[in-house]
């Protein structure tokens, strides 16, 4: 392919990834996940007893996520209005669903596990970075999981399939932005959200790209977890 992206990356190349586990000492589990200029931190508190009581589930625990962008985190330099918004409420909800399919909360009847996701700095793909960070934080908190979860934005830029869009790329006229969360091992989708229009065949192509990206994210996630708990463990 002869086309180049705005920042010179290859179509299937992710931005620089970085992850760190255990960044918040008072939380039961915590993690930072960075994709280029997008930085998300996640903290897990719980399991604790869930109130109000009618929200309790007597057969399994409940996952509750909250997503928010910090006031100074906007990519355009503009202040983000703090507090809940329609957008953050929706993202909290989809994050919850994306993570819930990987969790096994059967041991935590009547309890809640709170996941707080904060964006320190944003350049598109915030819900994806948030999900990656939250999955790490949940693993750090020792919550049983059937699979790790990774998430990445894929899409079309001037008709070319690409992964991990930046703000500039997703704002282009006619661009397609597809946020995808996947279970890392089984490659089952747990979140698909799209802006723009796409054909069926192209959709398959971009989802294939996402699979490759999730593998790369998994390597970073695994490394971050092992780093906190003492390397290979073969001392």
């Amino acid at each position, binding site marked *: 392919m002869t086309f180049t992206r705005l920042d010179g990356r290859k179509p299937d190349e992710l931005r620089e990834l970085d992850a760190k586990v255990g960044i918040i000492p008072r939380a039961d589990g915590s993690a930072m996940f960075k994709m280029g200029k997008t930085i998300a931190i996640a903290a897990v508190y719980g*399991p604790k007893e869930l109130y109000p009581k009618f929200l309790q589930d007597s057969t399994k625990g409940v996952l509750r996520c909250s997503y928010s962008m910090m006031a100074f985190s906007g990519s355009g330099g503009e202040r983000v209005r703090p507090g809940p918004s329609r957008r953050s409420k929706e993202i909290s909800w989809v994050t919850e669903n994306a993570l819930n399919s990987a969790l096994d909360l059967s041991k935590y009847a009547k309890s809640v596990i709170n996941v707080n996701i904060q964006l320190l700095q944003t350049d598109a793909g915030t819900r994806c970075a948030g999900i990656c960070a939250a999955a790490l934080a949940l693993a750090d908190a020792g919550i049983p999981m059937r*699979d790790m979860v990774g998430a990445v934005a894929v899409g079309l830029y001037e008709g070319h399939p690409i992964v991990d869009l930046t703000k500039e790329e997703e704002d282009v006229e006619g661009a397609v932005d597809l946020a995808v969360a996947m279970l890392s091992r089984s490659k089952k989708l747990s979140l698909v959200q799209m802006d723009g229009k796409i054909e069926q065949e192209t959709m398959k192509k971009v989802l294939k790209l996402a699979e490759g990206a999730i593998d790369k994210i998994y390597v970073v996630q695994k490394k971050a977890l092992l780093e906190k708990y003492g390397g290979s463990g073969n001392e």
Partner: protein
Amino acid sequence: MTEEILFKEKEIVIPGQVLAKGMGYVPGEGTFREEDNIIATQLGLAKVNGRLIKLVPLNGSYVPKEGDVVIGRIAEITFSNWLIDFGFSNFAAISLKDGSSDYIEKGADLTKYYDYEDYVVTKIVNVTSSNMIDLTMKGPGLRKITGGKIIEVTASKVPRMIGKQASMINLIKENTNCQIVIGQNGLVWIKGDKLADEIRATDAIMMIEENAHIEGLTEKVKEFLGGKQ
């Protein structure tokens, strides 16, 4: 069908990692089977024991099990129960019958036996699937705690602190002249005659907490305790 183990003994594995292939292996604690694969559900040390594959978690909150001895705080008193907070999401109950061998009259002041904010060493007798928990105070070593101090450790590291046939805990007790009770929920009660002893025991336990995944820990603890004497 090929059967193979995909980890080294005591390797640290992460949730979702495939530990073994083949129907010849059996999934143990912290693992599950999906088709041919045995998969880890938690971050921990993977171990093989014959055909059984299990995982010792390195983190995570305490999940109550029948028969566990735990240390808890009296959080609430009702007409017929003491409700205990032992770091689990729900309170657990000690009924009148299990609370004391005395006959307790209806409407008696239950604070005479265990008052608010008292700490007790107690045993789990029953856990239902919806996490209702019954405790008992009847049994050897189960009692109200007086004096000393309580520290908190990671619940998954408690077996390491106790050691094989209580070797580790006895080592600390002998070297510091302290009484120590470790609750499976991660609360540890330490009482010594001298404050310095208590501090030494605390330091030793915190050292195990930090180095729980390291082999030859007993030697390290011996060295640690011996060094200060």
